[in-house]
């Protein structure tokens, strides 16, 4: 029992690992690196699983450019811009974090406070942006039909650009009500919200409008674009359609493979949760700086340790950005 008894002199020593510093790094910093390494392997496991599925469905995976095309307050097709902004915000908050660490080394409390605050604000902007990105993805852009074997077929105009259902579908049927457990069958649940049109409306509007074409999920690997079907093929596809799909969730995805939506929600969600907890930790440290905890302690190493975590979150985003949006 004696070994665990904390004597007056050794309080600091026991907490910091007995005063020994392997690799000349403090106990806390070393443990942060241990955590970061294990977390890095967790994230690489997720991303590699995504890679596995993408290789498996190489010729039918959704094309990211066509999925994430929204910019706030502007209508139109803008791939990449918004996510580039998000990346920039996260890198910038990393810079303010490292500036806080730098100011901490020089014991400049005022500067540490300002830079920590900027870091927190950057993190909040990023989190808000991600929520907005999720909202767009969940609500959907164009709408599509799903065939009985789970394939997705999307609608295009004469030039092969994707068009929304609302651009050509004429509403004739009465509004169907969303099926809930109390009104519908208790053992059946609808996959997501009620689509704005019925399948019959979509098919009849398609037949009535010769300018509208149908696009398969299959990618023409020569030009890396989704294949556009002939009218005859399109009719065969529509004969097998079972549902109108609007937006994406864990069960259906108007942009293509549902797996894409699953991985998107899971990986960006897990990363977003890291950002969220990073912000919380940053706020705690921020107030500790204000009340002078580290000034009294004589060093700002705690800021450095949360800094490591924050930079790690940025590091993960660099890879998520590459594998979800670029490659």
């Amino acid at each position: 029992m004696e070994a665990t008894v904390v004597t007056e002199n050794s309080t600091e020593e026991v907490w910091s690992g007995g005063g020994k510093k392997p690799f000349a790094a403090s106990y806390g910093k070393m443990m942060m690196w241990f955590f970061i390494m294990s977390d890095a392997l967790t994230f690489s496991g997720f991303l590699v699983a995504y890679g596995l599925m993408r290789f498996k469905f190489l010729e039918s995976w959704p094309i990211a450019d066509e999925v994430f095309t929204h910019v706030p307050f502007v209508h139109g097709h803008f791939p990449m811009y918004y996510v580039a902004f998000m990346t920039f915000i996260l890198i910038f908050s990393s810079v303010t974090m490292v500036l806080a660490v730098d100011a901490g080394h020089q014991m400049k409390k005022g500067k540490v406070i300002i830079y920590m605050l900027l870091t927190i604000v950057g993190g909040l902007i990023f989190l808000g942006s991600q929520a907005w990105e999720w909202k767009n993805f969940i609500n959907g852009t164009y709408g599509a039909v799903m065939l009985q074997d789970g394939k997705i077929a999307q609608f295009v105009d004469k030039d092969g650009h994707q068009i929304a259902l609302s651009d050509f579908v004429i509403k004739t049927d009465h509004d169907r009500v969303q099926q809930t457990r109390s009104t519908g069958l208790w053992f059946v649940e609808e996959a997501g919200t009620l689509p704005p049109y019925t399948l019959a409306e979509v098919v009849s509007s398609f037949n009535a409008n010769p300018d509208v074409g149908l696009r398969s999920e299959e990618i023409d690997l020569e030009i890396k674009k989704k294949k556009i079907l002939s009218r005859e093929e399109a009719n065969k596809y529509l004969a097998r359609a079972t549902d109108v799909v609007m937006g994406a969730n864990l069960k259906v995805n108007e942009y293509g493979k549902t797996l894409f939506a699953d991985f998107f929600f899971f990986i960006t969600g897990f990363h977003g949760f890291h950002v969220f907890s990073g912000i919380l930790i940053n706020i705690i440290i921020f107030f500790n700086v204000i009340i002078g905890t580290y000034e009294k302690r004589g060093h700002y190493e705690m800021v450095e340790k949360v800094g490591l975590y924050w930079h790690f979150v940025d590091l993960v985003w660099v890879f998520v950005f590459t594998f979800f949006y670029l490659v």
Partner: protein
Amino acid sequence: MAHAEAHESHTGLIWKVFGFLSLITVVEVILGIIKPASLHLTHFLGTSFLNWIFLILTLVKAYGITWYFMHLKQEKTSLRRAIVWTTVFLICYLTTLLLIEGNYIHDRLFPYVSWNYVK
């Protein structure tokens, strides 16, 4: 402390690294929007040139973040290697195995996926 002697400010270096990382991101985004056919539709070692460029730029960015923001550059060489070599090795190992497997599954599965409906 690794920084015991380094009390002078590194602000200049930090902003330089920031400029560098932003520049890489801008290049990535421009390439991602334009997708030049000469890079996008050509093949090199299993994927397109464009994808190789993205992967390499990503690794360069990761280097910038870990070395300068996470101060790996200032840590002892032994600590840096214990962290980087271990992680990089394990990730490469996992990636190689799973992507080979994914490719195999694709080759087996692809012949059975129908894109033409008879009726």
